[in-house]
């Protein structure tokens, strides 16, 4: 890529990041204002914890992006590791599966190596074909038939939802660099991350302020039609503004991508809720104060990352 760079980033990516920091500053002031009567002796409210954790996450994200592509891939690998570990700690695994689980962890560096070297064929085939069959084999060879289907189902679904789905973040970052002159892979990754996270926040805010009609009460009792539609409209508008700056997509395509991300994000969110409800837990872990676990934060991306990457690739890759 040619042209001027600010702090190693293409100018649109830089300004997008700057805009996120402005939003964070505004959110911090809003929190202070909302809680102006609250005595200082009380522990930090959930809202404050949430905003604080956002600062931390955006800060880490910035450091990683500035440190270069390899650092970004390693960081994505770490995040996937945490997400997979959360999943494997939640599901009722058994002693016979212990050795197999190590193989499941090993898929992370392999899959990200394919992403890093931009080998699309291996990237797309490795988890659903090779890892899937290998893990089935590893479980069969343990010789335990009782609960076999359950084990194989739980482990391979988790593998798809964490390793395969989230590794698309890495692929988008690397592959985007070659084919997109506007803001590079970072621009695409920013677009995907900002839109899904903004959609989460927008859904939450709209749902909290206007929400009345429940959308999927058996799975996620706090989600409402008002929240979902409010998020959809907000994200579509935001994407129409940010898309042409960060990606090669013109305004109409950007808006469509925003709508798609809002729907995919919602589906990822309720999928993780269904899982948690099935297992009888509230959060996937307690890693991120105010948010829950890594999977609680990334749930929308488990759908949004592959959906966006493949739709984008279909229409915009040469």
């Amino acid at each position, binding site marked *: 890529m040619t042209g001027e760079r600010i702090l190693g980033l293409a100018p649109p990516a830089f300004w997008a990041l700057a805009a996120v920091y402005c939003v964070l500053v505004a959110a911090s002031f809003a929190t202070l204002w909302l809680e102006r009567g609250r005595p200082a002796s009380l522990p930090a409210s959930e809202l404050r914890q949430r905003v604080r954790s956002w600062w931390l996450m955006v800060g880490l994200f910035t450091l990683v992006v500035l440190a270069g592509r390899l650092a970004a891939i390693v960081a994505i690998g770490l995040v996937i590791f945490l997400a997979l570990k959360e999943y494997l700690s939640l599901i009722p695994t058994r*002693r016979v599966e*212990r050795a197999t689980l190590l193989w499941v962890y090993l898929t992370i560096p392999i899959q990200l190596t394919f992403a890093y070297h931009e080998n699309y064929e291996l990237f797309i085939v490795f988890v659903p074909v090779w890892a899937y069959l290998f893990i089935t084999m590893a479980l069969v060879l343990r010789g335990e038939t009782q609960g076999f289907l359950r084990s194989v189902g739980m482990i391979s679904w988790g593998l798809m939802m964490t390793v395969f789905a989230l590794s698309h973040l890495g692929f988008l970052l690397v592959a985007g660099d070659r084919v997109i002159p506007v803001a590079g892979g970072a621009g695409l990754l920013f677009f995907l991350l900002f839109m899904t996270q903004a959609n989460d926040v927008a859904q939450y805010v709209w749902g909290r302020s206007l929400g009345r009609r429940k959308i999927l009460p058996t799975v996620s009792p706090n989600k409402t039609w008002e929240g979902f539609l409010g998020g959809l409209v907000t994200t579509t508008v935001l994407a129409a503004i940010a898309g042409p700056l960060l990606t090669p997509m013109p305004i109409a395509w950007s808006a469509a991508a925003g709508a798609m991300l809002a729907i995919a994000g919602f589906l990822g969110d309720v999928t993780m809720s269904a899982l948690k409800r099935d297992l009888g837990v509230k959060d996937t*872990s307690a890693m991120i104060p105010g948010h829950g676990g890594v999977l609680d934060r990334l749930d929308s991306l488990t759908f949004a990352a592959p959906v966006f990457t493949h739709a984008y690739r279909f229409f915009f890759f040469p």
Partner: protein
Amino acid sequence: MTSGQANEETRPGRPRNPAPAPANPPAGGIPSWRSRQLKRAFFALFVRPLILLVLGINMRRRHLLPTRGPGIIVANHNSHLDTLTLMALMPLGRLPEVRPVAAADYFLANRWLRFIALDLLGILPIARGGIVSNPIALCREALDRGELLILFPEGSRGDPERLAEFKKGISLIARSRPDVPITPVFLHGLGKALPKGSFLLVPFFCDAFVGEPIVYRDSGGPDEFMDLLERRFRTLAAEGNFEPWE
């Protein structure tokens, strides 16, 4: 708390061991500067990344976990990782005063285990069977030096993720120093990550639930004390609502 001498004490519950034998394995004493730094480096570079990043600990009520002695941390025992986990939660500077109470015959069996047990972990080695030395007296001396003991009243690690019956030794130590706070910590998941008999570490998020400390003086007697301690543990274990692990 620092005045007690080992041989002045009555040793309840151990009538057939008259002479307070010297601590046969090395115990206590002030560690040298080099061994302190070695320990610090071992925990900062190896144990903490392993426990906090590769595994990851979900804690409840961390503020109740004592970081300075005299005191006793009592935990259920499923894995070699239990000791490392509790020590990884301590500030690095306090580690020399944290003493896991462990069986001498197992941990001093060869020079490698001995190095890990004494130099890196700083265990308080006690003889099982109680013929040679008096484990209660060793613990009491350590408490009098202001150390923080880590004790597993189930004895050995046993079946992973299953709570075994508690041994009575803890009540004898508590009775000899009735004002020392005893903090129960329920650990879950470490037996899945590294069960007894396995060398393969599989990453899992683990849980550490800290309970309110107990003081022996408030309990009334050794049996009541054991009841109270076991009740605390069952309450902590029930908090997690964990399925048994097969």
